[in-house]
């Protein structure tokens, strides 16, 4: 491709220099993304392909047989070392004595935890029951107390009404007695006044009569000397 006069080179250059837009139209991008979304949702992933892929990858690794052999040797060496260096099987009694405290402690801990949990559950349940019972009792007591207080209040109100009525009656009696007393006093005063007036009239009549008599006496006394001097016809008439 070094020869610029080569038509193949020119053609390649022509293709390379073909004016191309910087990117696809937005519509193409959108339709492609839509199609990809549909396909990625509809196409199920290939199953059983991972084994093939792993196998192919293993084949592609250079020197895989040597690596595999080295790995096998390492595993074998590790297994033999482990077998040789493994401790003898422990004595059952010793193992029992060694494990018993730990198992017992763990069992005790678990039992304790279980009982704590059970007691917590029972406590909460008991608390709920007591709370419910307490509420029921409290409601019943409140109802009864309310009813009782209503009856007492009614009774007290009746007593109050009665006492008010009796007080009013007593007041009326007192007022009536006072009025009667005033009336009797008035009648007594009237009688006394009438008696006084009658007495005064009698006295006055007596005094008038006495005065009349006195006047008559006087007149008689006065006329008697005159008659002796000159008799008067008018005095005769009297």
């Amino acid at each position: 491709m070094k020869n610029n006069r080569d038509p193949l080179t020119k053609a390649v250059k022509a293709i390379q220099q073909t004016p191309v837009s910087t990117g696809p139209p937005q519509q193409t991008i959108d339709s492609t993304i839509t199609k990809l979304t549909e396909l990625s949702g509809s196409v199920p992933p290939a199953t059983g392909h991972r084994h093939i892929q792993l196998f192919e990858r293993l084949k592609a690794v250079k020197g895989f047989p040597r690596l595999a052999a080295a790995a096998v040797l390492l595993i074998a060496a590790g297994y033999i070392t482990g077998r040789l260096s493994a401790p003898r099987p422990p004595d059952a009694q010793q193992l029992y004595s060694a494990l018993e405290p730990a198992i017992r402690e763990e069992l005790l801990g678990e039992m304790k935890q279980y009982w704590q949990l059970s007691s917590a559950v029972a406590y909460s349940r008991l608390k709920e029951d007591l709370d419910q019972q307490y509420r029921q009792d409290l409601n019943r007591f409140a109802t009864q107390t309310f009813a009782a207080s209503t009856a007492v209040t009614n009774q007290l109100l009746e007593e109050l009404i009665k006492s008010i009525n009796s007080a009013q009656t007593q007041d009326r009696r007192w007022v009536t007695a006072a009025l009667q007393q005033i009336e009797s006093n008035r009648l007594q005063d009237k009688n006394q006044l009438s008696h006084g007036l009658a007495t005064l009239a009698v006295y006055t009549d007596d005094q008038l009569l006495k005065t009349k008599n006195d006047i008559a006496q006087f007149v008689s006394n006065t006329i008697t000397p005159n008659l002796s001097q000159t008799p008067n016809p008018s005095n005769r008439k009297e």
Partner: protein
Amino acid sequence: MQVIDWQRIVKKHGPLIWQTAYRLLGNHTDTADCFQETFVSALQFSQRQPVRNFPAFLARLATARAIDRLRQRLHQPLSNAEDADWVAIQSANPGPVQQAQQHELAAKLRKALAQLPPQEAQVFCLRFLNNMSYRQIAKQLGIKTNAAGVLLYRARAKLKQHFQPAIAGDEIQKEKVCL
């Protein structure tokens, strides 16, 4: 299975794929179809095995799809200038004659690529249009580097043979001009 954000992939590598396909196909309609086919193929491939290098992988797919489309176009009666996107010639840099010549050469190369075996055409396009190294091409096509070199050599040889009559025609034309 590999989880891929296809929206991001399309937006990131879309321009490269579009340019690769457009250079080979030369019109918007085929390029748009090729663009979509490329990403659909990539999706189907990614569901079978993971993709490590998306740009190179997509470029390879786009090249393959574009060559397939060129081969389809070769068998259709209207395959030359009718499919060309004449709007693209409106650039002001070269003259119209030169543009026409370049366009003719490009069309001829496209036709020649369509006549090549697909793998050789792919190697040629990846090497000269996408500027990939032999190693990258070999990696993408799953072949050895030497095989890629061989395929490229064969492709060039066949393309040169294809362009040989044109060279001869040019020489005759020049002789005629001289006379």
